[in-house]
């Protein structure tokens, strides 16, 4: 159990993705069970790894480091994938979700992996709220991206009179649209809560005044605003459906994801910000878990 490494579940998820791709060629119970087994095995290894990490740092994985936070996010996505294919074994959602999972696991190598010493002095409740709401909110953002992509692909196929001949089984536009709506409805309030709690942490934990000119705050704020704009529009537009919704959600979610991933990864490769240092947000776990 203690020997579980990132490579274990990365390899399992890779095989599961290959099986999912093979299912595009031909659907068969064997292939489904093979893919499911590899994904489930990876999920188990992933869970054990996070458990071990938490025990080693004596902190929940969400708080132990940015790397673990990223891995928790990937873990949530895999859980969602397993949940969906348990109830609908025909749907080809793995083709969209598993590459994201692999990307997140791979990205975790580039983010801070050291335990967060500062958490010992931080208010545990606030940091937990901050990290958890951001993680679940980001999982919703990832779902929004995948669902929007699936919607646009399904829309294109239907407009061009293709059915499921290529083996790619997608849910109906109506279902994709409905789940997409819920993913935005859930993720935006959670992200708002996460960002709000981050600001509270900043105010509590730092003697310095909060600068709204901080590029991290500006970039995060813009991406959050764009997603909140989509949220408001979807909430106010009765029966908001269609390609336009999918495009808006995709762009807003992708922008937010890109922002967060950049803020996670760029400091590790030493990119300087115009703020006089690396692009860091001292109080944000996603950006800098070890300096909170």
């Amino acid at each position, binding site marked *: 159990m203690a020997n579980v490494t990132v490579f274990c579940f990365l390899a399992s998820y890779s095989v599961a993705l290959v099986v999912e791709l093979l299912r595009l060629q031909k659907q068969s119970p064997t292939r489904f069970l093979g893919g499911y087994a590899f994904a489930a095995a990876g999920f188990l290894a992933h869970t054990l790894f996070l458990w071990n990490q938490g025990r080693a740092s004596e902190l929940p994985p969400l708080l132990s480091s940015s790397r673990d936070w990223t891995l928790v996010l990937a873990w949530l996505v895999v859980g969602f994938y397993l949940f969906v294919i348990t109830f609908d074994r025909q749907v080809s959602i793995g083709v969209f979700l598993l590459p994201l999972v692999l990307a997140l696991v791979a990205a975790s190598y580039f983010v801070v992996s050291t335990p967060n010493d500062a958490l010992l002095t931080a208010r545990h409740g606030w940091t937990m709220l901050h990290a958890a709401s951001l993680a679940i909110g980001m999982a919703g953002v990832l779902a929004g991206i995948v669902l929007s992509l699936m919607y646009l692909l399904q829309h294109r196929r239907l407009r061009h009179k293709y*059915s*499921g*001949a290529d083996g790619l089984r997608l849910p*109906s*536009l*109506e279902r994709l649209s409905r789940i997409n709506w819920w993913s935005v409805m859930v993720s935006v309030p959670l992200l708002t809560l996460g960002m709000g709690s981050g600001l509270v942490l900043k105010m509590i934990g730092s003697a310095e005044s909060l600068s709204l000119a901080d590029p991290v705050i500006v970039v995060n704020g813009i991406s959050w605003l764009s997603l909140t704009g989509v949220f408001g529009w979807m909430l106010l537009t009765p029966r908001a*459906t*269609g*390609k*336009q919704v999918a495009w808006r959600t995709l762009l807003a979610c992708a922008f937010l994801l890109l922002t967060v991933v950049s803020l996670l990864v760029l400091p590790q490769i030493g990119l300087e910000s115009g703020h006089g240092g690396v692009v860091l947000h001292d109080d944000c776990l996603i950006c800098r878990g070890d300096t909170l």
Partner: protein
Amino acid sequence: MKLQVIYCNHQTARLDVRERLAFTSDDQLAEAYTQFRGSFPGSEAVVLSTCNRVELYTAQDDEGGAPGHVELAEFFSRFHGIPIEEFFGDLLTHNGPDAVRHLFRVCSSIDSMVLGEPQIVSQVKNAYRRSEENQACGPLTNALFQGAIRVSKRVRSETRLAEGRVSIASVAVGEFARGIFDRFDDKTVLVIGAGEMAEETLRYLQDDGVREVLVINRDPQRAEVLAREWGGSGYGMEQLHDLLGRADVVVSATGADQPIVDAEMFRRARRGNSDQPVFVLDLGAPRDISPDVAEIDDNVFLYDVDDLQATCERNRKLRSREIERALGIIDEESDRFMQEVYHRATGPIVKRLREQWLEVSEQELERLRTKLGHLEEEDMGQVEQTIQRIVNKLLHPPLETLRNEAREGTPHGLLEALRRLFHIHD
């Protein structure tokens, strides 16, 4: 005897060609039969015109006087007023056994876009009935079409071709409408037309949970009757614009010879509703919905019968074993049918020969009765039976040879020899 078919179908010709060659109404068909009889008085004819095919079957005893495929193509050209070069390349023709096999395949739905679909049998029956009503049928086409209906029954009962999605409507709804909508119980379905295809579509949609059904037809009473059957409401064509705007699913299957819904009408109907997806299924040939309706906005999903081709082809591949079994039955039945036809061609000669010999035997018996008047009734009966047996035994070898020869085709040489040898005259 010449039996042939000239045709185009969904595999050989595009929809725009088929819809120009189609016979869309009973009146048009009646006029076609009248003109055909005028042009080819000795020929029997049956026209089969559906959304997927236009076929003309002809049969004539006198092979020399039968029209060839070029003459039949010219007939199409004259009747529809289309230059022959615009469609001649899309026409195919079969003669004799191949023509029989073709009809048997068509009627058994092997040749259909949707393998195993049941509508084709009633379409073939209707085509045959219309031909009878217009006095265009004859003994050969009667036998051919009755044979085709019998073979289709056998194929359906002995194979599994008719299992699964077996109608164009079911393929369209199953493959495409379900890609758009998750459920149908909260959708409004508008059916334009009250024919068999409309009914079949409604049957399938109701199985999928549709509750609100609107039926529109030129004859509102007919629409009302169909709608009532499916728990919906019937309307006349004047309501089309209003109802188009309300529908989530539009299925059109009328016999109109030009589009009844154009882009402008659809755009006006969708005003204020253009963010909602609408599934439009045009099962008409000629098409009922103008193709540019699909361009109105991104949420209009329009499909016509040709758009379903790829899906149907995939279903066909999955059932290749059943197709092989069905083709085996069709080959066997086609051979049997042709033997019967050939055998029937020898019938008049056989009958005449038998009559001639019996006539001779009767004359001889009469002469014997006069000469041997003292014979008892019982003895005379024995003599009659003996002579009858001699006639039958003498007739048996030539008739058996004739029957054997007729298995491969009409034995013209042998028939001619019998005529000359025994002085048989028509």
